[in-house]
């Protein structure tokens, strides 16, 4: 892939805090127009990586290019081409939604009429039109998040970087949020986000899984699901917890995760596993309704890959 098709390229990017290596030799390529999700456990290095590529924090070593600009050599040039929404972003509580957006536009020296046009379009898309005059201090978390997103987009960035954009936000605001995100690739905007939520990860076009500062796996959400070692069985039973207890210690079972009235049981490849599961349930006196092989969920993949802790091809 030539450099022109890449919105973000990092090579061997590293950052250390004292003894802790937060980001450890990360090389990633994110094509223009992608919606790219970085997923990983608490403390895996997600936020640090976002800060490094947005030039908010300086890397110890390695390279990061955003929209063709070298972040480390020229962080100012990058800022013109990038929008960044951090977890702790702040808006002015004593200004209205509209005033916050206008102010942001002024900061970026954007022409007033262009800000005006963007603002109308975005407020409509996010269902915020009728609240334009409301003070930001009086908005709920989900609404603030949407205003933050509009502000991050006001300078028409080529790359939009979002650090856990929908933590604590309900599904309705999340849907509104993703309505905007999904329109961006067609406008040539690349979105890079990180999230601890797998249902959010499922909405991305490409994913990378990070743990202890290193990338363990990359691919589309569908490809990530296929990276689970062995097979995942969906077992529905009347007494899910009894079923879970009966299966946890079986040698062929790697992991048992309850999902409502079903269990996801990750087993070694092969036919015997199903019969072993069935036998164990029978011995424990658990009535099983159904056992069938399923496409692993992203959460199954996440747990499997992070627990194994090694790079997965």
């Amino acid at each position, binding site marked *: 892939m030539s450099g022109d098709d890449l919105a973000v390229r990092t090579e061997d990017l590293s950052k250390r805090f004292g003894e802790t290596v937060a980001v450890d030799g990360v090389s990633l390529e994110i094509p223009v127009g992608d*919606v790219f999700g970085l997923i990983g456990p608490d*403390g895996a290095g997600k936020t640090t990586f976002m800060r490094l590529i947005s030039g908010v924090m300086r890397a110890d070593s390695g390279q990061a290019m955003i929209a063709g600009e070298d972040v480390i050599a020229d962080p100012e040039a990058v800022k013109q081409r990038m929008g960044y929404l951090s977890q702790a972003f702040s808006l002015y509580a004593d200004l209205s939604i509209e005033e916050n957006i206008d102010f942001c536009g002024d900061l970026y020296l954007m022409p007033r009429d262009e800000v005006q046009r963007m603002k109308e379009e975005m407020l409509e898309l996010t269902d915020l039109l009728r609240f334009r005059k409301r003070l930001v201090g009086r908005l709920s978390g*989900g609404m603030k998040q949407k205003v933050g997103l509009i502000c991050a987009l006001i300078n028409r960035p080529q790359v939009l970087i979002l650090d856990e954009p929908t933590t604590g936000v309900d599904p*309705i*605001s999340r849907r509104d949020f993703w309505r905007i995100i999904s329109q961006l690739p067609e406008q040539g905007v690349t979105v890079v986000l990180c999230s601890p939520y*797998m249902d959010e990860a499922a*909405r991305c*076009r490409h994913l990378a899984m990070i743990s202890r500062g290193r990338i363990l796996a990359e691919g589309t959400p569908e490809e990530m699901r296929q990276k689970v070692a062995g097979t995942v069985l969906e077992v529905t039973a009347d007494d899910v917890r009894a079923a879970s207890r009966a299966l946890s210690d079986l040698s062929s079972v790697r992991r048992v995760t*309850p999902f*409502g009235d079903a269990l996801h049981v990750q087993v070694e490849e092969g036919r015997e596993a199903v019969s072993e599961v069935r036998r164990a349930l029978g011995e424990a006196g658990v009535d099983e309704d159904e056992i069938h092989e399923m496409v692993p969920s992203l959460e199954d993949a996440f747990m499997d890959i992070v627990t194994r802790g090694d790079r997965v091809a």
Partner: protein
Amino acid sequence: MPEDLAIRTEGLTKKFGDFTAVDHVDLEVRRGEVFGFLGANGSGKSTTIRMLCGLLAPTEGRAEVSGMDVREHPERIREVIGYVAQFFYLYGDMTVRENMELFGGIYGVPEDELPGRIDRWQERLDLGQYSRVLGADLSMGMQRRLSLACAVLHQPRLLLLDEPTSGVDPLVRREFFDVIGELQDEGTTILVTTHVMDEAERCNRMSLMDRGRIVAVGTPAEIKEMSGGRIYSLEVRDLAKALDLLQEREGLRQAQPFGRQLQFQLAQGGDDEAEEIAAWLRDQGLDVDDPEPVRPTIEHTFLTLLGGSGSEEDDGQ
């Protein structure tokens, strides 16, 4: 109150001035179940929980916890419940162990039993090595664990968890739900709020709240049935244009992007109608694959029942 109910409310209402935060809620939570308490931001979930804890007096109606009226016995209720608030409310300038000692003391855990219980929960929630770390220096995941530990030291019969896993990763969430399962095995009733729909999947039953009212109650399977029409997924080249077109089209409930896919929900009908929509998009010049049926999730029902209301915006603030 029937013996098998841990929580029962009748017409429970809370008003703040002109704003009705909780509007005649009738809720029954059975003893020993894990009950998901779902709803949009600002729909009244936290206010309801605070009334159940006896922290906030109802304007109207009644609420019973473990057979006791929350108005008449607020102190006794505090002895039988454990409460984890949405935000970290422990002491940042005290260590993990000091926080646990303080909360154990407040909740009246017998002095000779407290050290043993603290040890057990420190170990169970992997807090042992952080015993001497200050609350303020813990990561989000660790703060959540500590909050849970402090809430269960006095072995409450009912545990009220307000977004206990907001912002934490699947590994920590899974561990939380494992602990919830163990507490359930020991006979504890758990009411938990969450915005994460796969977490809601792990509850025995759940309710959906909208603008102060309960609009649906059921098992995860029953809630999914309420999602309305059938759901399909399409792969389409120009996602934004397809979304725009589908907003205009009749007979559709929801259309939303999902990676490279577009998901839509039919108001009526099945495969034939879905095919028709794909064909119609092709007529508009879009490159569209055949629609695939999608299993409904709790999120679909959430969006169907609450999606049009814009409830969080009308929270009267």
